[in-house]
């Protein structure tokens, strides 16, 4: 028998790619059903207003129009508000309806929906719907919204506060800061961002009255979650007759986790009208309806002892939640943020409090990293400010404070227990790759010539592998965060894996196949990975929080072990040997010491389905299902370094080099892991330099198109220099940690620190993001003016 080459750990080309590179992917908008009607939403042009009257008579009379519905029609038709999936004590939960009833709370909120034979006709008719509004006062800024007398967004939240949340020991932290040799104080803004997956959200619903089955194709990262929430809570439609399919999905970055108004409306419309109904967002709609990310204002106090060791950290954050609570909004600025403020440093005292605030803006929820980038930016930016105030080299300051490798598992001051880590080598390797000492000399030389180079460090940690169900349940999650997997070995030995993870670019069809093929000793071509269809996959919690490998992969691993166990019992029976004497290697069960006495997986599988000779106590068939609930999060870490050149005459920053050393635990497919990091880095760099969801005082998004919002383009980025260290996670048998968000978390502060380093000769200590040419140029001008005075 040929030796089987191990596939795990190899850069295997992706199995999903042939369909994408030849135009044969199936994205939601590519699904065509006969008789499909198209929905177009009439959207509020105002950020806060009372709906006085909606006149749809002209729209109804327009050619091809089938129906027009308002929010009241949906509410009367049994459509409930979209619930919140994470509850905090005292949380205010204003009704979040698919279509507004009476009042609108942000620009872009739907006030009516038009259904017509084509999208173009529906769009024409939508323009004929006349809405009378009574304008109400608007508040956009979360800090302003907390001030007495601020416009009130919801009557049920009188001071616009959705929640107040605290973590850590206040008395201990205050005492630590009082006793500190130096306390660095700063105010940091983490600006609002928009995920902008290139595929706009879309949904298509079809109802079969004969069987009472409702099918929804939707751009979702977690179709079972969509089914459960939409079926049980919003539409009151029985879960077992409701099939949700998330086919190929063109990027998510968090924005496709949530249950959205449009998909609720489309599912309701298909049943109401008895025709398939489709809605596909235009990008201009995405900007004002996709859940947005970040948007924190934080006051930071970071204390150090005389030796530059961290003494304590106190953080007060105001988190802008937008107009409504999106599905997981409450957990992002709390349990995914405050718990990460320990970073990878030994901080003896930490306290954090967060106010979640309603404003007349698009709701905010998880965006790639979700809370963890905010924590990392806060820590790493403040560490750099501190290094200057303390007169200590920024790498040295970090080195002094890293948690040493002997201290794992490490209990932080903010609830988490880090699984494994070895932080110093990643920092050392990144410094070596960038040539740290040499750079400082070059930088000094360049400054003499009026050329401003800067280098920025960022040491990051993140929490992946979401999440132990019991833990998140005790903290307010209205869901478990396990994952399920079914491994079905067919009579011929071919294998179908049904996974609850969902791939929207992560390449699960490849990595999971590598895992299965290795474990079962069969070719990858004999393995099919099925995901994204509640009609085929028993259950699943989906993909976000860098959880697919650590949680979804482990669920597959567990089912594979059960398959091998049952296969061994069957093989032993067929071979007339004791099960303990049968070993499974390279796809074959054989008797120890007599390798010629054996059965292949396919032979055993066929025997299991023929069931002519089953051992006692075993059922026919060869199929196993597992639900894996992790015992802890996993904690990837690393060091990223950015090198920039700032043109002080134009304010433009060029990212010259980018070095990343990441430790994501064991790696199943290094090519895919590197790809995840590259994309993450680009998004984080873009937050530092270009991206900003900016609202004017009236609540209009002023960066509401790809002409105005700074999505990074190829000519703005360099190629990245990456390496890794490997510290396996003890949490799961695969030893994997997660790689989906690391790049985004680490890169924003690295670039911000680099620009501030470049601008240090001007005495500029901090600028809020994004560091656009205008902002940098104005700061340099102001600094130069100061010199002249």
């Amino acid at each position, binding site marked *: 028998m040929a030796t089987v080459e191990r596939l795990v750990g190899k850069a295997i080309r992706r199995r999903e790619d042939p369909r994408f590179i030849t135009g044969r992917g199936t994205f939601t908008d590519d699904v065509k059903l006969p008789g499909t009607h198209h929905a177009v939403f009439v959207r509020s042009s105002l950020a806060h207003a009372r709906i006085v009257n909606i006149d749809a008579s002209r729209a109804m009379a327009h050619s091809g129009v089938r129906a027009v519905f308002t929010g009241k029609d949906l509410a009367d038709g049994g459509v409930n508000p979209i619930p919140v999936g994470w509850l905090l004590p005292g949380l205010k939960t204003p009704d979040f309806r698919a279509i507004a009833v009476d009042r609108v709370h942000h620009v872009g909120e739907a006030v009516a929906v038009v259904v017509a034979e084509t999208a173009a006709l529906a769009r024409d008719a939508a323009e004929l719907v006349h809405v009378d509004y009574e304008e109400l006062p608007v508040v956009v800024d979360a800090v302003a919204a907390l001030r007495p007398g601020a416009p009130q967004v919801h009557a049920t939240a009188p001071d616009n506060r959705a929640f107040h949340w605290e973590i850590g020991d206040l008395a201990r932290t205050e005492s630590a800061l009082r006793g500190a040799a130096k306390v660095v104080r700063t105010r940091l803004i983490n600006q609002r961002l928009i995920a902008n997956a290139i595929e706009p959200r879309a949904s298509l619903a079809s109802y079969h009255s004969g069987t009472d089955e409702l099918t929804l194709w939707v751009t979702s990262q977690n179709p079972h979650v969509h089914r459960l929430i939409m079926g049980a809570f919003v539409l009151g439609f029985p879960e077992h007759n409701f099939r949700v399919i998330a086919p190929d999905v063109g990027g998510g970055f968090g924005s496709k986790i949530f249950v959205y108004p449009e998909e609720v409306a489309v599912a309701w419309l298909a049943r109401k009208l008895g025709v398939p109904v489709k809605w596909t967002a235009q990008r201009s709609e995405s900007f004002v309806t996709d859940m947005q990310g970040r948007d924190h204002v934080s006051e930071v106090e970071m204390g150090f002892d005389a030796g530059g060791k961290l003494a304590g950290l106190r953080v007060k954050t105001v988190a802008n939640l937008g107009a409504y609570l999106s599905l997981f909004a409450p957990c992002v600025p709390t349990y995914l943020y405050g718990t990460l403020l320990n970073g990878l440093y030994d901080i003896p005292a930490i306290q954090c409090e967060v106010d979640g605030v309603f404003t007349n803006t698009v709701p905010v929820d998880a965006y790639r990293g979700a809370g963890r980038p905010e924590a990392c930016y806060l820590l790493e930016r403040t560490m750099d400010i501190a290094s200057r105030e303390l007169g200590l080299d920024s790498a040295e300051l970090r080195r002094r404070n890293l948690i040493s490798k002997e201290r794992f598992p490490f209990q932080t001051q903010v609830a988490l227990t880090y699984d494994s880590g070895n932080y110093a080598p990643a920092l050392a390797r990144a410094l070596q790759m960038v040539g740290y000492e040499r750079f400082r000399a070059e930088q000094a030389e360049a400054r003499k010539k009026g050329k401003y180079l800067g280098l920025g460090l960022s040491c990051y940690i993140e929490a992946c592998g979401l999440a132990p169900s019991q833990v998140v349940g005790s903290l307010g999650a209205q869901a478990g965060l396990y994952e399920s997997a079914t491994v079905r070995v067919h009579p011929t030995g071919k294998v179908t894996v049904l996974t609850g993870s969902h791939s929207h*670019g992560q390449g699960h069809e490849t990595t999971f196949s590598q895992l299965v093929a290795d474990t079962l000793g069969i070719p990858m071509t004999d393995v099919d990975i099925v995901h994204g269809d509640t009609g085929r996959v028993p259950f699943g919690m989906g993909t976000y929080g860098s959880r697919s490998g650590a949680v979804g992969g482990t669920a597959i691993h567990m089912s594979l072990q059960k398959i091998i166990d049952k296969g061994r019992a069957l093989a032993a029976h067929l071979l007339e040997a004791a099960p303990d004497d049968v070993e499974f290697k390279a796809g074959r069960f054989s008797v120890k010491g007599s390798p010629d006495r054996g059965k292949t997986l396919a032979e055993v599988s066929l025997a299991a389905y023929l069931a002519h000779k089953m051992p006692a106590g075993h059922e026919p068939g060869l199929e196993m299902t597992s639900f894996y609930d992790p015992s802890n999060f996993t904690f990837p870490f690393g060091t990223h370094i950015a090198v920039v050149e700032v043109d002080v005459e134009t304010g433009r920053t060029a990212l010259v080099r980018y070095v990343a050393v990441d430790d994501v635990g064991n790696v199943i497919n290094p090519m895919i892991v590197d790809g995840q990091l590259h994309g993450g880095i680009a998004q984080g760099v873009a937050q530092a330099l270009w991206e900003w969801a900016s609202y004017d005082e009236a609540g209009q998004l002023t960066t509401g198109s790809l002409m105005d919002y700074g999505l990074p383009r190829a000519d703005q980025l360099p190629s990245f220099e990456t390496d890794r260290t490997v510290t396996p996670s003890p949490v799961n048998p695969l030893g994997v940690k997660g790689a989906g968000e690391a790049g985004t978390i680490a890169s924003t502060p690295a670039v911000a620190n680099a620009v501030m380093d470049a601008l240090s000769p001007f005495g500029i200590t901090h600028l809020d993001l994004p560091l656009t040419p205008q902002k940098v140029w104005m700061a340099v001008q102001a600094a130069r003016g100061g010199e002249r005075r």
Partner: protein
Amino acid sequence: MARISVKVNGTQQSHEVEPRQLLVHYLRDVLGLTGTHVGCDTSQCGSCTVMLDGRTVKSCTMFAVQADGSEVLTIEGLAAGGKLHPVQESFWEEHGLQCGFCTPGLILSAVGLLRDDPQPDEHAIRAGIEGNLCRCTGYHNVVKAVQSAARKLAAAPADAGSPRAQGR
């Protein structure tokens, strides 16, 4: 309505279309060629890039009627006779795609770039594809894919340099 005749991926097509129908919607909705994607409404993202008479165009930026009498090549027509174009092959080998949504547009932009500049350096590649937005890859592996494709095309110039040379 207006009648147009367009040769798409080598097949002559003739349809009555609304004068306001965009070329991309004609391709997707009338011809069922859903490999060409729509990612924005301001001609910024490039997901809808196709070849029109041998030049790359954003098919959301022109009306179907403007394509009357032209030859269009979409992603579905790029793999001549089922053999992947070197650019397609290189995107696969170099992991130049993740979610795959922007990929058809990026591949066709890269085909156009390499036809105009067969040996681009990294700077020229980045400048050449800056009209296509990709949110997944950070462009790192897209650049590697284009470099690899350039090497392949240089080694076998008769293979595929121009879409027209592929018998269309």
